[in-house]
């Protein structure tokens, strides 16, 4: 079967700077990939290529067999950034609804239903500034998923949240994706988060950004946070950390 997302020899230069160099990566349908690496390794840049927010200097990207630009036009992409992309003058419900207004996609999901499912039913008429960071991010994820895109791209979605909220959001996201399977790329700084959520962790080396190692994570799902107390989890985290240190020493 053809991979859902293929990066072939992807390179990107900004002027003199080589941001990404000859990246090869195959992502299967429904797979959850965590991209991790030291800052400046091009994780976000890579993600932005898949989202057609950047164009490659050389190489090829195929998303569902098509160019990112086409996939974008077909409304098959969902994005979640660290900073919630919500309009301050619109309520939670209106912010989620906005995705459907723009894409005009016939989705099996409804904004109200999704917010209920996300435990935000009571807050549908609240404005973003009335919500906590974790709640805003849940509204943000709802807004990114309501048109039911097959591809979900996340750039440090929980980066601005405190530790407890992060753990809760990780569990939450895992469950949501179990119900609505998607091919997902998560950019993160947190090894814990990567191991907790991903099927495969991709470690990027910096300057220029290139893929240097892969770690498969085959813990069963749904994964609860108790998994973090198990030694198998600790070993995975250790393995990723070791690879990350090697990469940084390069």
């Amino acid at each position: 079967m053809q991979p859902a997302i293929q990066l072939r020899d992807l390179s990107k230069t900004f002027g003199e700077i080589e941001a990404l160099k000859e990246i090869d990566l195959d992502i299967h349908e429904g797979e959850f990939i965590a991209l991790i690496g030291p800052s400046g390794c091009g994780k976000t840049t890579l993600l932005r290529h898949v989202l057609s927010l950047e164009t490659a200097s050389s190489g090829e990207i195929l998303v569902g067999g098509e160019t990112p630009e086409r996939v974008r036009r077909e409304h098959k992409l969902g994005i979640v950034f660290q900073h919630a992309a919500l309009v301050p003058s619109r309520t939670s419900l209106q912010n989620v609804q906005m995705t459907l207004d723009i894409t005009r996609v016939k989705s099996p999901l409804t904004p109200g239903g999704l917010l209920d499912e996300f435990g935000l039913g009571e807050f549908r008429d609240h404005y973003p500034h009335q919500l906590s960071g974790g709640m805003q991010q849940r509204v943000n994820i709802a807004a990114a998923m309501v048109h039911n895109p097959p591809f979900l791209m996340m750039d440090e979605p929980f980066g601005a949240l405190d530790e407890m909220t992060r753990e809760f959001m990780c569990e939450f996201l895992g469950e949501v994706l179990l119900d609505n399977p998607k091919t997902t790329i998560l950019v993160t700084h947190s090894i814990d988060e990567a191991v907790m959520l991903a099927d495969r962790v991709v470690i990027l080396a910096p300057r220029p950004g290139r893929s240097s190692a892969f770690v498969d994570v085959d813990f069963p799902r749904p994964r609860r946070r108790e998994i973090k107390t198990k030694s198998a989890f600790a070993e995975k985290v250790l393995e990723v950390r070791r690879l990350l240190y090697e990469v940084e020493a390069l």
Partner: protein
Amino acid sequence: MTSIARERLGYVLMIVSVPIIWQLTVSLSGLQAFILPGPGIVFRTLGNEWSNFLYHTGVTMYGALVGYAFANLFAISVAILFVYLPSVQTFLMPWFIVIKNIPFVVIAPILVITLGTTNLPKFIVVFLVTFFPVLANVVTGLRAADQVLLDRMHVLNASRWQVFWKVRWPSAVPYYMAAHEVAFTGSIIAAIVAEFFFSRTGLGYLIVTAMEGYRADILYGVTLIAAVLGLSNYLLVVWLRKRLLRWQDA
């Protein structure tokens, strides 16, 4: 006491204090009535000649509003042009800066000898005084749109129109309202000053004739009217802003 009640109380106290302080000043200074008339004389003049005052106030308001409406229309259109075509800004901005910085009292006589004693010079003076603050604020507001939201719009393949109405314009509204607070009152000042030069009607004309005839009672009457107009304009803008930006207080 709620903060709104406190704010209102402040205005009531001010309105009550003005005639008291005024009368005290008259009594203590011993100035004659043709130089500093007391509130009694001024209110009597306003009462006796109310239809006259009303007429001239109407003329000034009309001039201010028409000029201001055009200034807004122009400023918003140009602001949109600037944001979508930055090169236009490069060419036009120096012109606007120069026009804005020529004292309008210098321009007014030129307009009168060119255009004659029609309403047109007054409209133009009001326009010249008020368009710039609106333009500057709306440009800033349109540009202040959240980059993350703009990226989300791009990934959702939103049209330019959708991006404008759903993201850029809502971001500009608070800035636009702030511009009104300054510029709307400015429009009345500009209309009055324009009337000094050529008009046979309006509050500015009333001031000139009152001055020539040593009618201090009329001068103070016009001052009162101008103060009431300015204050009501300001309060109207504040009220409008509260309504439009209700979500901020939610």
